[in-house]
């Protein structure tokens, strides 16, 4: 049985259903991420776990303990849940020093003074802020405030740590740094973490498992590799990074492969059959979409020998973006945008060949795509 269990969680704000009949199992010691665009219900789910929102329906269990059950009339107040939380705005109390901020949860638990001093010291050590105890909280930089907030949430050894977009207020460089540290911290402490973000890089790089949410529902739950490479829906596919797609029609249905004629091109592509879909989801003659992550596309000035799955096109324009090139490729009537690493340069007006390796492409119905 999973450590943290959410059953049929539903929460509305007026007419807006923020979380809709959500079921989720989170294992002990797991770094679990709720990922989605703003308004998808991820923060509401997190706040319901922490007790900051009262759900309309559903139940939440932590181990053997029932935290919320609408039907049994149970609601455990946030202060009784033994969970730590890091807020997006950090929410450090400006009238307290760093030490007082971190010591607050311990004081509320009637810990003795020497114990408080020792535990606060250890927590600040953990986040690398030893020596800043007497600073007033507002006098710290954004990254330091972030660390104090982490120390405060961890100092009383909570059973779960909740993080609500903790990195979004940091500048890009600091964000990368904190991301590394957060991962390292979780390995050291081993605490169960529930992390909310809208940033797919954060989600992919940090998580043991990711739940992708939209409209208050779960779209897919899986390891970062699973959800990135084997998205089960177009929304997940488009949310997790860029996509390069070509329209086409199925001309041949094999056992495990389909042959797709690309619209506006003479080329046909060999595409593996999607695993998660029933065999007769795709038929000969059906309009489809062939999708690939753009970094998996190779560009050639000529048709290379021994390569298949090639599509010919024309380079309309080339823009230099520093470490990358942005290409506008015309295939038939349509133009496509392609951003590739600046390894070699191609010139505008050239004929080019795009290689789409079959192990990297996925097949989608023509409707319901981005």
């Amino acid at each position, binding site marked *: 049985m999973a450590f943290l269990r959410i059953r049929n969680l539903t929460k509305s704000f007026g007419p807006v259903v923020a979380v809709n009949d959500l079921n989720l199992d989170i294992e002990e010691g797991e770094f679990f991420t709720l990922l989605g665009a703003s308004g998808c219900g991820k923060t509401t789910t997190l706040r319901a776990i922490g007790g*900051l929102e009262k759900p309309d329906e559903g139940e939440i269990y932590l181990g053997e303990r029932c935290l919320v059950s609408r039907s049994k009339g149970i609601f455990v107040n946030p*202060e009784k849940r033994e969970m730590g*939380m890091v807020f*997006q705005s950090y929410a450090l*109390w400006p009238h307290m020093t760093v030490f007082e901020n971190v010591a607050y949860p311990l004081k*509320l638990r009637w810990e003795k003074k020497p114990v408080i001093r020792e535990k606060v010291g250890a927590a600040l050590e953990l986040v690398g802020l030893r020596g800043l105890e007497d600073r007033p909280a507002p006098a710290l930089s954004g990254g330091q405030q972030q660390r104090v907030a982490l120390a*405060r*949430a961890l100092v*009383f050894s909570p059973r779960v740590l909740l993080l609500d977009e903790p990195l979004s207020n940091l500048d890009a460089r600091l964000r990368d740094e904190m991301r590394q540290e957060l991962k390292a911290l979780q390995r050291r402490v081993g605490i169960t973490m529930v992390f909310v973000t809208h940033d797919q890089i954060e989600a992919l790089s940090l998580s043991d498992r990711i739940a992708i949410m939209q409209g208050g529902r779960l779209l897919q739950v899986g390891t970062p590799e699973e959800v990135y490479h084997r998205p089960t829906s177009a929304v997940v596919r488009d949310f997790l990074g860029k996509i390069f797609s070509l329209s086409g029609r199925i001309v041949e249905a094999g056992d495990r492969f389909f042959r797709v004629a690309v619209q506006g091109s003479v080329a046909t592509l060999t595409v593996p059959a999607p695993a998660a879909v029933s065999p007769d989801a795709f038929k000969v003659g059906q309009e489809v979409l062939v999708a690939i992550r753009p970094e998996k596309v190779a560009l050639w000035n000529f048709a290379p020998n021994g390569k298949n799955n090639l599509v010919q096109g024309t380079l309309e324009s080339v823009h230099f973006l520093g470490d990358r090139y942005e290409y506008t490729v015309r295939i038939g009537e349509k133009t496509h945008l392609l951003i590739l690493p600046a390894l070699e340069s191609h010139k505008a007006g050239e004929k080019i060949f795009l290689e789409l390796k079959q192990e990297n492409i996925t097949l989608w119905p023509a409707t319901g795509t981005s």
Partner: protein
Amino acid sequence: MEYTETAPIGRQKASWLPSFDGGLALMVVLIGTLGFYIVYPLLLILINSFNVATIAEPPVYGLKAWQEAFSEPGIWQSLWNSIKIAIVLQGIALPFAVFTSWLLARTNIPFARGFEFGFWISFILPNIATTFGWILLLDPNTGLFNSWIKSIPGLGSVNFNIYSFWGIIWAHLMANGISTKVMLMTPAFRRMDAAMEEASRMSGANTLVTMLRITVPIMTPVLIVVFLLSVIRIFSSFETELLLGIPWGFYVYSTKIVDLARQEPPLVSHAAALGSIVLLFLAAFIPLQRKLIARRQFTTVTSQYKPKIIDLGIWKWPATAFVGLVVLLLDVVPVLSVIGGSFMVRFGFFNLPRTWTLEYWQMALTDSRLLLALKNTLIIAGSAAVIGPIIFSLVAYVLVRTRLPGRNILDSICWLPSAVPGVLSGLGLLWMFLGTPFFRPLYGTLFLLMIASILSGVTLATQIFKANFVQLGKELEEASRMSGAGFWRTYVKIVLPLMMQTMVLIAVIKFMFAAQQTSSIILLATSESRTLSLLALDQVASGGREVASITVILIMALTVGVALVARSLGFKAGIRAESS
């Protein structure tokens, strides 16, 4: 800054340095005018406390007034009474207002916006109206509430007396003591980042502990500002003490000054000596007040602003009943009692053969004294509403948008009137008008009262204008200057139209304050130039309560009525910490 006439387009200016000639003249005019009407009268008080002769006589200097004034125990007593009232009042009102603001801003108490509006109404209600309303209810002999409570078995010996120290405290609490603070603190509480409280809950604190250890401490800077603003105004309090203290010989600072100045023969130099003490006290406090208010950003407003409210659970209903009762006591009870008073044959006597009457209204509406007072009030408040915004928008514009020398002096002058008790500025103006031969014929005319009314809201008006000019994009004016318009054309054609909303707001505020003020004009008015508020004070003092209620109703109509109309037209009164 330049005038167009001194720097016509195309004329070669010597350098890129601003030309001072025209701007300097404007500055001199502004400082001269405001200084003459605001600073000079106060200096006169200081000087004349050493003048043994009476007003308009050749001065004879000496220390007699100081000696006599401070050998009389009544003077010390009145100062101490002012301080005592302030301590007790703030001791009750501040915790009360903190708790109420917290309920309104941070919890899920129903009708919070409606209750907040109730406190706003209470702030607008003139002191005279609420005090008079409570007199009708708590007079020891005829008070409606008293006779009501006596009729309850077992409570026959209970009798409240509004003419007492605690009666004065009660009247202050019911007037502005609570409502001003709630109005100032509720928005500040509301701006606080809810995550601060949620972080405390997650750390293991319940709602009450969170309020006491997180919310209120974070709000401390706001509380201190609100508290100090009240402290600065200790000596300004007037109407309540006049109505409730004089009948039993209880004087506070401002009523004592009026008493001294009105004695036969008038002891104006004694009044001046008493005035000087407080001026010296304020000299220390005005810079502090200015600093407090100029520092705008008290609260921690994060970009992730999210108005989350605390669920009170079952405590929601007692809390609603509590705030509802307070609003009822602040607004409905005094207003109803005043209105009732005007229609009853004898107020509170429900068992007379004839209980209700329109007689008093018929009498009042044909009473030439009332009609004269109404006319005076309209003229004074109307002129304050027209002239005030014009002058103070210019002052604020010069302060915000120019680099002229002397801005600091001008700004300081504008801060002065907010802290000086109205009685003192009235006394100073009286001195100036009677002591200057050129002005003497104006004594007894409405002109004096108009000057006093225009000046009484200087600080509030300039602060609101300054805040708005700061927000107004400077590029709009610079574009006008680049198009070839000079200072004045830009001011009239660009700045004023953009500021119209604020101009109307200031006009409304000035009208409201002018229509209800008493302390700053009581020494300047004669029976010919008396306003409605002064008439009401006289009527209450002489015992004509039924007639007085009609006067008070007219004052309420001119203040609350105007405020409600303005609000419904979309002018949200931006009343800030500097308001009285």
